[in-house]
């Protein structure tokens, strides 16, 4: 029994040994297993986004001049305000930019002197009449902002004298008539007085009368045989706060210009486009109490060696309404189309302004020194246009993409589905540019890919494919440090409008073969 059991167990053990020894133990030694044979075909959607024109504008920092109109149409808007194109102070100051004076000499014999009154002998008593020019303004009254009056009298008499000067037309801010009273010795008297704040009343002919009296104590024996008086009265440094009167018509040259930022267009667009129905709004703020007009000889955009006139014809006359108190629009004859260059960065306005064209026929006016004429120019270019060879270009700095191993991916196909709601056709291409060597290493598409425009406002779909057989090609592309996106934009002939609600939907997907072995081992 024991022997049988022993034998049986031995045989069983032998069979089990055969079972296990028979196994190829190498087959379960996985130390040399280092390769996976699997090459999958993968497709991934990467991007599914809709961008309206409004979204694109929001994303761009420096395109403030591209704005949305009330109906959503996109427009280029340049606006500039010329403050105080014509200022009353300058105008009035130019009028009073030279001195107004009167001077002369008078000779008396003692016998011609008036009788002595009491103990006073009047030696000189005369009116000094000054006159402001009458070619520009017929004054009725005025308030002086600044001004001086110089009074001077010399005579051949050594004894002390008394000098009195009055001018009822000049009154101080407190209402006191101008009056000077002084003692003089040595045969002369001279003084310069400040007239700031004085009011001036001019009854006629712009004349101001000063009444001068020179007297002394009565002692005839001391008088020379002939008395000679030299006198002078002179206004200087005159400026007015306000003038009431009649004014002559004034012509002033208008030559204004400004530079604006066109960086976005200049950097991204090349070629020119024909914009239809440009609008130039000119608003004038005229606080003068009188109308005027501007004869425009030039209103143009320029830059990059080219220019485009906004005027339908020139010269063009613009009427300026009187006393508007706020900016009021005036009509300008504007061209119906404009060749817009993306290099335009300068606006120029040139012509002549005429203030108070009716001149002295205009009733009495009141001019104050704070009155101005200001211009606000708004150039609005709705993006309603025709374009043929406009090229959009953008350079995107690019670096830091950590690409997997070279051999993991192959037969890479990028599919870009575009649903174009814009009325523009595109020819797209992307270049991979290496700034170190200044060379374009590769392009995304074999040739430019066409994206058709929306048709009758209905978006149209286009599919663009870019394929790279090996991942080495992809690596070469992404080894570059810049991606240059380029699009040729063109319309089908009829004018189109760009609206902020117009959208372009992008559906980007990638398909590739993935070598699982490389993916895992690298």
């Amino acid at each position, binding site marked *: 029994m024991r022997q049988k059991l022993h034998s049986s167990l031995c045989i069983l053990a032998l069979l089990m040994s055969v079972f296990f020894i028979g196994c190829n133990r190498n087959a379960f030694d996985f130390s040399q297993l280092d390769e996976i044979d*699997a090459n999958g075909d993968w497709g991934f959607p990467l991007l*599914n986004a809709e*961008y309206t024109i409004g979204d694109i504008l929001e994303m761009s920092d420096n395109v403030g001049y591209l704005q949305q109109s009330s109906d959503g149409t996109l427009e280029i808007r340049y606006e500039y305000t010329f403050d105080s194109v014509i200022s009353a102070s300058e105008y009035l100051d130019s009028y009073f930019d030279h001195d107004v004076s009167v001077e002369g000499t008078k000779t008396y014999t003692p016998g011609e002197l008036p009788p002595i009154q009491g103990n006073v002998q009047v030696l000189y008593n005369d009116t000094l009449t000054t006159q402001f020019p009458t070619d520009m303004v017929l004054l009725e009254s005025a308030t002086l902002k600044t001004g001086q009056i110089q009074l001077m009298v010399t005579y051949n008499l050594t004894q002390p004298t008394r000098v009195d000067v009055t001018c009822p037309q000049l009154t101080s801010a407190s209402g006191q008539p101008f009056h000077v009273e002084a003692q003089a010795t040595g045969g002369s008297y001279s003084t310069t007085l400040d007239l700031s704040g004085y009011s001036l009343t001019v009854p006629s002919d712009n004349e101001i009368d000063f009444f001068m009296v020179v007297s002394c104590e009565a002692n005839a024996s001391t008088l020379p045989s002939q008395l000679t008086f030299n006198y002078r009265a002179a206004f200087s440094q005159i400026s007015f706060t306000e003038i009431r009167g009649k004014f002559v018509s004034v012509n002033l040259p208008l030559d204004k210009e400004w530079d604006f930022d066109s960086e976005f267009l200049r950097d991204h667009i090349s070629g020119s486009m024909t914009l239809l129905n440009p609008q130039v709004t000119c608003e004038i703020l005229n606080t003068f109490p009188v109308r005027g007009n501007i004869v425009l000889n030039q209103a143009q955009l320029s830059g990059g060696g080219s220019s485009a006139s906004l005027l339908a014809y020139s010269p063009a006359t613009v009427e300026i309404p009187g006393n508007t108190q706020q900016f009021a629009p005036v009509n300008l004859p504007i061209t119906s189309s404009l060749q817009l260059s993306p290099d335009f960065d300068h606006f120029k306005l040139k012509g002549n302004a005429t203030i108070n064209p009716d001149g002295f026929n205009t009733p009495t006016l009141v001019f104050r020194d704070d009155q101005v004429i200001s211009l606000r120019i708004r150039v609005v270019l709705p993006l309603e246009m025709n374009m043929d060879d406009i090229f959009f270009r953008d350079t995107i700095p690019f670096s830091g993409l950590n690409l997997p191993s070279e051999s993991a991916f192959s037969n890479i196909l990028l599919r870009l589905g575009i649903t174009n709601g814009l009325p523009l056709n595109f020819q797209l291409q992307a270049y991979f540019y290496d700034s170190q060597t200044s060379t374009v290493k590769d392009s995304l598409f074999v040739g430019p890919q066409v994206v058709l425009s929306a048709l009758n406002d209905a978006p149209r779909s286009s599919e663009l494919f870019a394929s790279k057989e090996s991942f080495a090609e992809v690596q070469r592309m992404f080894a570059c440090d810049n991606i240059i996106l380029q699009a040729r934009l063109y319309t089908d002939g009829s004018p189109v409008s760009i609206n902020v609600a117009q959208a372009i939907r992008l559906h980007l997907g990638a398909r590739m073969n993935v070598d699982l072995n490389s993916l895992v081992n690298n």
Partner: protein
Amino acid sequence: MRKIIFTVLMWGCFCLSVNGQALDVTHFMRISPFQHNDLPSSSTIYNGYVSLPAGNVQVGVNLGPIRYKNLFETDAEGYPTVLTATKFVNSLSYKNYLGVNSDIELLGFGFRIKDRFFLTVDHRFRSNLDFTYSRDVLGLPIYGNMAYVDEPADLKLGINFNAYQEYGVSFRHQVNDKISWGVRPKLLFGVANINTQYFDALVATDPTDYTITMTYAAAMRAAAVVPFTMTFNQQDGFNFEIDNDARTIVGNVFRNVGFGLDLGFSYKILESLNLSAGLLDLGFINWNTSTTRMTSGLEDAGSMYQEGSFSFSGLSQSQIQSLMNGEDYEELLDTLAQYFPMDIAPMGSYVTGLTPRFVLQADYEFAKYHRVSAATQFRFTKNYFQPSLTLAYDGLFFNTIDVCVAYTMQRHSYDNLGIGVGFNLGYLNVYAGTQNIIAAFSVKNVSQLTGTVGIVFNWGHYDNWRKKNPKQ
């Protein structure tokens, strides 16, 4: 006889189109007293037996369509150097199965009562893992999603794991010389269970814009006598804790109660030709300890949820903008995760069924102690039907050495040549067998690894008993 042969051939043809686990080779060995485990109506040659503790151990691994030769490429010395993933996936069927099962007779005995009755009592520990998976579960990561533009990738997973103690009393009645029947009621105590109710996902890819659309739903239940808690949330992920307090565990051992039943019927058509049928493992277990439910599915968490599906057509404008603004892409992943919420929570008791089997067997004894058998087994796992056909020869030589050779065919597995050897040493017999001896010599081709060993004390040989009691 022709009908029988025809029927057997039909079974074989049927088995060519399906797959499943098969009867173990020791089932056909005359000296094994455990044939009643698979056929309660089958007889044993002993008048009685007592198995040693763990006296019959049966372990099986069914890899289904998985073959070493399909998985690896070897060099001249036989070392695997290449994992041939594509070839492997190509070899899979639409639905695939992987199973691991063990059946350990912890203690058992049986004895004959008069001539017509045989009673056995046993205590077994049984476990089975049935893992089903669709080919696309592996095909999608290997082939890539563009291989599924015409038909969506159908991702199905099924896990059914049961471990339980079985206390059975088997009763066999030989009605007459032709007919016998047997029944075995079983009291079950569950140890652990993991059970997917469903795990279904469909992944489709649009061939033009590569939009990926997915439907998904999953539900799973688990229970164990070892108390555990499992939680999940998006921030902290999974949290799994086990309470290894021995008292609690012991207290739980008998809380997952279940019942089972095996039935068998045999009919002797001719003196040497016997037909048997068995319906096995009918029953259920009611799980009560640490019952946990995990559910997951799609939720409407945003624009990617469309008509009950998750649809990813690329990053949106705002998502691109967020990434360009330097926001962490993990936040984006968190957003995506909200579409796939998962909930893990304790639940009340639940019931799982056993894995029923139906066995049909024909034995033809062409000479004394030499017989050939044809048996088919139909195994009913959840959503999966596993038939097999086994042709076996068993011979007892010198009244001592039992040799059994069996051939089993299953789908994906037609090269299962099994062998079993046993020795009858008087009151003791020992035996061992495997369903696939080829595995010892050509491991690259096998899909099954099974083994059974047993040592049993027995007494009385039925033939001798019959000689002594011819009238009973």
